[in-house]
Structures are given as structure tokens and as C-alpha cells.
């Protein structure tokens, strides 16, 4: 198993199957939160952390608890509750440990519980069948890598979009198109651009 597998997993999750633009996960924060660049980066940081840790946890639970007992049908409920617990723990931890970190990331954590990107990536990792392809332990690495790539892709897109948004606010737009409608059109054009990256890996 060569390191290129991880690299390919990261690039493919980040650019070729971008979570927001091509898999439609986490569209709410994409449209709502990303007005300022710092906000976008803070959100991206929080999502990256929770997405990677959450994916690893749910992967382990799926293959070491649900699969051996043959109870994979409760995976939805197990995944969402484990991710939600994780978010609560992380929030509590940084509340206690660092005021600075809480300022930078903590305020985005409640937004993450219902962020479909986190649960979506966890579900995808299991459905992609990395464990069957690479074995359970190596599959875990690939799953973590693709979660990391997905989070990077999310950050990249909301950061880029926040910069576009600044220009968009200053532009003259017909009244009916102001706000979300024109943002969606911009997102559509961004999605077209990302379609062009198909096939680079």
C-alpha cells in the first residue's frame, strides 16, 4: 500500500468530488455563513477537526461494533449521536482549556451538529467500502484522508465564495436576484468550473 493512495484520496475528495459543489453537502453554511473571510476560515477549521475525528470514530464503530454484531441497520442513529456527542465534548473541552481557541472555533461548533457534510462524509466513507478494498486498518487511513480532503475542499470553497460575496454585495443586481438567488447562480458557475477537474487523478 503506497502513500499515493492517501494523496489520491485527499485530492479526489477535495477537488473532484467537492463536498459542497458536487456532492451538495453543507450547502447551508456555504450560503449563510460565508460573508467574511475570517468567518469562513474559522468555520473551515472547526469542520476540518470534527470531520476527521468524526469519520475515524464512526468508521471504527461501524467495523468493530456494528458489523461484528450484524446490526449495521442502526448505523444512522449511531453515527448522528456519536458525532453530536463528539461535538459536545470538543466544545466543552475548548470552553475549559482556551478562551482564544473558543473564540476562534467554538462559536461554530453548534452549527456543526446539524451540518450535513459531517454525517454525509461519515456515511460515504462506510459506503465506499474502503475496508473491503484495503483491509480494515489501512481503510481507516484512507477514510481519514478522504475526510481530511473533503474538509479542505469545504474550506476552500467557502473561503473562495466569501471573497466573491464581498464583490457581489457591491455589484448592481436586480432586486429579485439579490441575496441567495444570485449566490446560487454563482455557486452553479463554480460547480461548472469544478466539473472541469474531473479526471485529473
Amino acid at each position, binding site marked *: 500500500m503506497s502513500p499515493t493512495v492517501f494523496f489520491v484520496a485527499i485530492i479526489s475528495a477535495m477537488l473532484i468530488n467537492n463536498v459542497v459543489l458536487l456532492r451538495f453537502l453543507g450547502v447551508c453554511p456555504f450560503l*449563510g455563513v460565508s460573508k467574511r473571510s475570517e468567518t469562513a476560515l474559522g468555520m473551515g477549521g472547526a469542520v476540518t477537526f470534527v470531520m476527521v475525528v468524526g469519520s475515524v470514530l464512526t468508521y471504527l464503530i461501524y467495523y468493530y461494533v*456494528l458489523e461484528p454484531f450484524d446490526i449495521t441497520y442502526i448505523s444512522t442513529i449511531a453515527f448522528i*449521536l*456519536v458525532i*453530536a456527542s463528539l461535538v459536545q465534548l470538543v466544545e*466543552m473541552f475548548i470552553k475549559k482549556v482556551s478562551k482564544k481557541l473558543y473564540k476562534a472555533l467554538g462559536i461554530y461548533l*453548534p452549527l456543526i451538529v446539524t451540518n450535513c457534510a459531517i454525517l454525509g462524509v461519515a456515511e460515504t466513507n462506510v459506503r465506499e467500502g474502503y475496508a473491503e478494498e484495503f483491509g480494515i486498518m489501512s481503510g481507516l487511513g484512507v477514510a481519514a484522508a478522504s475526510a481530511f480532503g473533503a474538509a479542505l475542499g469545504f474550506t476552500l470553497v467557502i473561503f473562495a465564495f466569501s471573497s466573491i460575496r464581498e464583490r457581489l454585495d457591491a455589484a448592481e443586481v436586480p432586486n429579485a436576484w439579490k441575496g441567495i438567488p444570485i449566490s446560487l447562480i454563482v455557486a452553479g458557475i463554480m460547480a461548472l468550473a469544478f466539473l472541469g477537474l474531473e479526471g485529473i487523478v
Partner: protein
Amino acid sequence: MVPAIAVTTFVVILFFATYILNKRTPEPLEAAEIVDRETCTACKNYNCRYKIEETRGD
């Protein structure tokens, strides 16, 4: 069936426990002010209410 019930019960209790623990941990001072209402427009109602109700009590 038994393991399914056991696992479900476990995760439900885990979630309730962490939620209550987190809720009882006070926020660092000053931090409450930086919850910028404007950045809270994502999923208009729910997400922010979740945050606001914790800081303001509904």
C-alpha cells in the same frame, strides 16, 4: 436484537450526558458577545436558535 438495543441505549445516554455536561460548562467570559448574529443566517432558524437559546434562555 439485544446488541442493537444495547448500542442504541449506549449512544443515546452518551449523547444526553455530553449534552448536559457541555450545557453546564459556563462559556468563557467575553466569548458570549462574539456570537455574531449576522453570521448566524445559515439554516435561518434552527441553528442559531440552538446557540442563542443557550446563551439567552430561549
